[in-house]
């Protein structure tokens, strides 16, 4: 049953892509056909994935398509079920949110058809990646996902910056795909087949296993956006339509994490702790650099994209810890780390898509990308502001919302580090935990900046002052996600019980102690070591609030609140330019962590006629300057050198052919 629902999800997504082709010119009909089918795909993948996860069973199926000797194999186990659930949730909300959002494009220069066509194919591609059970169909689905998302990023291709961003994305997706292909190649070479079950049976020699691991780590990491392979994210996310950004950031990155888990835990097996060390290091670096770069951004969607780098870092910290414990013979702790990472995958999908949906509403209502031109939006968009606030609290890892639970589980896993016999690792793991703490605190600072500058204070531009609340569809979509953020924050024990099913696939004993003390308590390792009663926290906060309110309410009746203008220190009326800006807010952090960013800052004194000086601040990305630009220059220089053989002389070309032939004959004769 669950498997057929998963197939239905794929078919519905394909239908949502292809059915509108019958009426290409009628954008109203396209909307009526495409979005409900996308929603159906979301619902059926939530149901199918959820059932596979709850029941903990595996179904497989061989489709009579594909290569003659390798039919397309599909399989649904708890791991793919969990990720299918995540994909389905966000797809469903995107289908609720989308119709109102694309209304703007109906009047624009682009036809609507490419958007719905590639969205449907993109979702189908993601679903198929999760279901694929052989390397061949995995790669085909993977490329379907990559290429269709390229077209989605390039949807508004009349702007040059969008074309450039989309090209960089495509380039990196293809290079990443190549690494993954090579990784599968190593496995297939030893396993004698492209079939996942054949691959998982074989045990590789340590050297080759490490080669395969590194290839997969780079390949999947490129899609997931770990530092320094993250540069496509801040380019591609801001230019894609917002519900696509939500799908790409919320879900597609998770599909890359799925690929990494599937490859490392299932196909490769026999994890070495050194791999975990690498993953932990890269994860910590991604987390802290992602949030530091995010702090300096003023384009809301680019800022959110850098936060995706941060959150992928946090997921990789969990995975790294899990792999370290798995490699040193502590399966229960390895299961705990994996549960923490999976929980964060779910949480990030929820709050990041919520934030991208919110950013989309702001963009649609104000037409402003820049934080410095927003302000005071909470007065005009109360629902969006409330949902966005929930997203901000969740991503900042504050209790009792969902982001906190997964980070807390990651901390608890890290605190078990001293169990290792390797004292260097035992000392380094707490440092990684401190990096995680720094990340969380900086994320809170960043989202105070975002919410404070965007929604609070006075409007900084006319368009922000004239904004109004969005229509029903986007509001419902955001409210659903905000409620889920609270729900998964308050019911962690139930969620962890379900995630344990996935962990049991790789560590059969699981981590039963975590959920052994009833639904109120989350007790990783044991109740003496640590406990967290999330429902009680919510109850306690509400109770204290109620007491304070009951006590103060009679006073409120006696002396009502007086509304008056803000105190202006006697200097005349306050205006919007007197407020702290986003640049000013992040200035202390910019000064403290100065070497982290390539910054060019200049101040031009006012001329004779001008009233104010000009201050210019540019914050770049070291990864571009130190990694990609040298590579780009090297490629161009090599291409120029190689071009020398292309002289245009026919006799030279004949000579090349002749010598190549001779060389090949020699090779053949060996």
């Amino acid at each position, binding site marked *: 049953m669950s498997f057929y629902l998963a197939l239905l999800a794929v078919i519905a997504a394909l239908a949502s892509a292809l059915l509108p082709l019958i009426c290409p010119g009628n954008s109203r009909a396209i909307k009526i056909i495409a979005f409900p089918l996308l929603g159906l795909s979301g619902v059926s993948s939530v149901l199918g994935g959820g059932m596979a996860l709850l029941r903990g069973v595996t179904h497989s199926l061989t489709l009579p398509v594909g290569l003659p000797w390798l039919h397309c194999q599909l399989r649904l186990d708890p791991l793919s079920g969990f990720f299918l659930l995540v994909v389905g949730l966000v797809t469903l909300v995107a289908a609720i949110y989308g119709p109102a959002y694309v209304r703007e494009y109906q009047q624009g220069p682009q036809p609507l058809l490419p958007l719905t066509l590639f969205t449907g194919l993109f979702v189908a591609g993601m679903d198929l990646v999760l279901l694929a059970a052989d390397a061949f169909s995995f790669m085909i689905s993977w490329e379907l996902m990559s290429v269709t998302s390229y077209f989605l990023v390039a949807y508004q291709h009349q702007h040059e910056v969008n074309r450039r961003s989309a090209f960089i994305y495509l380039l990196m997706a293809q290079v990443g795909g190549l690494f993954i292909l090579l990784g599968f190649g190593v496995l297939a070479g030893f396993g004698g087949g492209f079939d996942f079950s054949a691959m998982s049976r074989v045990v590789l020699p340590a050297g080759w296993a490490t080669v395969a691991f590194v290839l997969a780590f780079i390949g999947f990491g490129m899609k997931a956006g770990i530092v320094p392979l993250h540069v496509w994210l801040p380019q591609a996310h801001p230019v894609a339509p917002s519900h696509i950004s939500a799908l790409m950031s919320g879900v597609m990155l998770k599909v890359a994490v799925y690929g990494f888990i599937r490859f490392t835990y299932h196909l490769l097996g026999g994890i070495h702790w050194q791999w975990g060390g690498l993953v932990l290091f890269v994860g910590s670096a991604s987390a802290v650099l992602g949030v530091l770069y995010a702090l300096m951004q003023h384009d809301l969607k680019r800022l959110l994209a850098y936060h995706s780098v941060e959150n992928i870092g946090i997921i990789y910290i969990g995975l790294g810890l899990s792999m370290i414990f798995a490699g040193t013979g502590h399966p229960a702790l390895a299961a705990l780390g994996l549960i923490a990472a999976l929980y964060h995958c779910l949480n990030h999908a929820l709050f990041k898509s919520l934030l991208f949906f919110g950013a989309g509403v702001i963009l649609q209502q104000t037409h402003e990308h820049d934080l410095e031109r927003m302000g005071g939006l909470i007065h005009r968009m109360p629902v969006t502001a409330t949902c966005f606030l929930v997203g901000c609290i969740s991503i900042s890892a504050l209790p009792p919302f969902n982001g*906190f639970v997964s980070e807390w589980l990651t901390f608890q896993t890290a605190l078990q580090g001293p169990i290792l016999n390797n*004292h260097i690792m035992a000392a380094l793991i707490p440092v990684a935990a401190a990096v995680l703490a720094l990340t969380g605190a900086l994320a809170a600072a960043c989202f*105070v900046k975002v919410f404070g500058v965007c929604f609070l204070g006075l409007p900084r531009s006319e368009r922000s002052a004239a904004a109004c609340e969005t229509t029903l569809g986007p509001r419902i979509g955001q409210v659903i996600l905000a409620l889920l953020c609270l729900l998964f924050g308050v019911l962690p024990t139930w969620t962890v019980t379900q995630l344990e099913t996935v962990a049991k696939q790789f560590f059969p004993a699981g981590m039963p102690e975590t959920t052994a003390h009833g639904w109120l308590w989350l007790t990783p390792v044991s109740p003496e070591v*640590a*406990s967290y009663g999330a429902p009680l926290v919510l109850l306690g906060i509400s109770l204290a609030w109620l007491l304070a309110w009951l006590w*103060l309410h009679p*006073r409120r009746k006696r002396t009502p609140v007086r509304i008056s203008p803000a105190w*202006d220190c006697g200097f005349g009326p306050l205006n919007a330019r007197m407020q702290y800006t986003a640049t000013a807010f992040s200035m202390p952090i910019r000064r403290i962590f100065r070497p982290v960013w390539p910054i060019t800052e200049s101040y031009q004194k006012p001329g004779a006629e001008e009233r104010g000086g000009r201050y210019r601040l540019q914050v770049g990305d070291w990864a571009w300057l130190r990694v990609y630009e040298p590579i780009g220059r090297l490629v161009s220089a090599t291409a120029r050198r190689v071009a020398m053989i292309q002289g245009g002389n026919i006799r030279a070309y004949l000579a090349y052919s002749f010598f190549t032939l001779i060389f090949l004959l020699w090779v053949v004769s060996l």
Partner: protein
Amino acid sequence: MSGWILAILQTGLLVFGAPFLAGWVKWVKCRLQARQGPPPWQPYRDLLRLFKKEVVVAESASPIFRIAPYVVFSVTALACSVVPMVAVGLPSAAIADVIVLVGFFALGRFFIALAGMDVGTAFGGMGSSREMTIASLAEPAMLMGVFTLAMTVHSTNLATMIGYLLAAPFQLYPSFVFAAMGLMLVAVAETGRIPVDNPATHLELTMVHEAMILEYSGRHLALMEWGAMLKLMIYGVLLANLFCPWGVAVDYAPLPLLLGLAAITGKLLLLGTALAVAETGLAKMRLFRVPQYLGLAFILCLLGMLSHVILEMN
């Protein structure tokens, strides 16, 4: 059941005792500076007066501005319920471990900082920016210190930690010495005392916490001020009971409880005096010296963790 009643009583004691500690620090400080000073119970009078006063809210303020005092107060009050002050082993202590406690403080701070930015004046934004910067440096140092302790006692549950230390024979752990020094520095920064912030000032160049709550009045201001006092009290109790746990009641007979109450009162008065002495002797730092100060705190906690790994493991 008696455990829950005791937990509620202890929480009430913490919540209603906090203004006295703040008043005590102020009184000792005034005496050290050869001033008469208000009596230690002056904060109670101040709070009562503020609760009676009219609330004035700026026109540009949003609902966040009105919600924030309640969130800050209720979260801090909940944090009080998990801190073992007089007795360990109370059922409320299991709700949250020390990492969640740090999360509670972060949630309160998030809302204070938002409230600071809400009205749209320059002061509020300035205070929020500074507060979030200082907090983002203090939090890793704090957790590093906590991890050092947690590694020794194999737990992050405050009650278990203190219970373990009470049960174990007295032993001077080098890691604890470092962690105590580091956490003390963090506590000074987190509670907004000299040399990081000055609770007595209203000069724009030096304000952090006061700048964020500048627009508040009446009962809203009272809740905010009370929340700050609670935070000082919680950090005081944590430092006192984690590094000097003697006297904390292990069973709930009246005599040990009274003893525990006397012990924590004495410890807090001593800590308050030490804070007053430090505040009298030190000047407030420039904002951009604070990272070095918190860096020192982090290094001390890191040294504590390393000395635990090198000297105390096995």
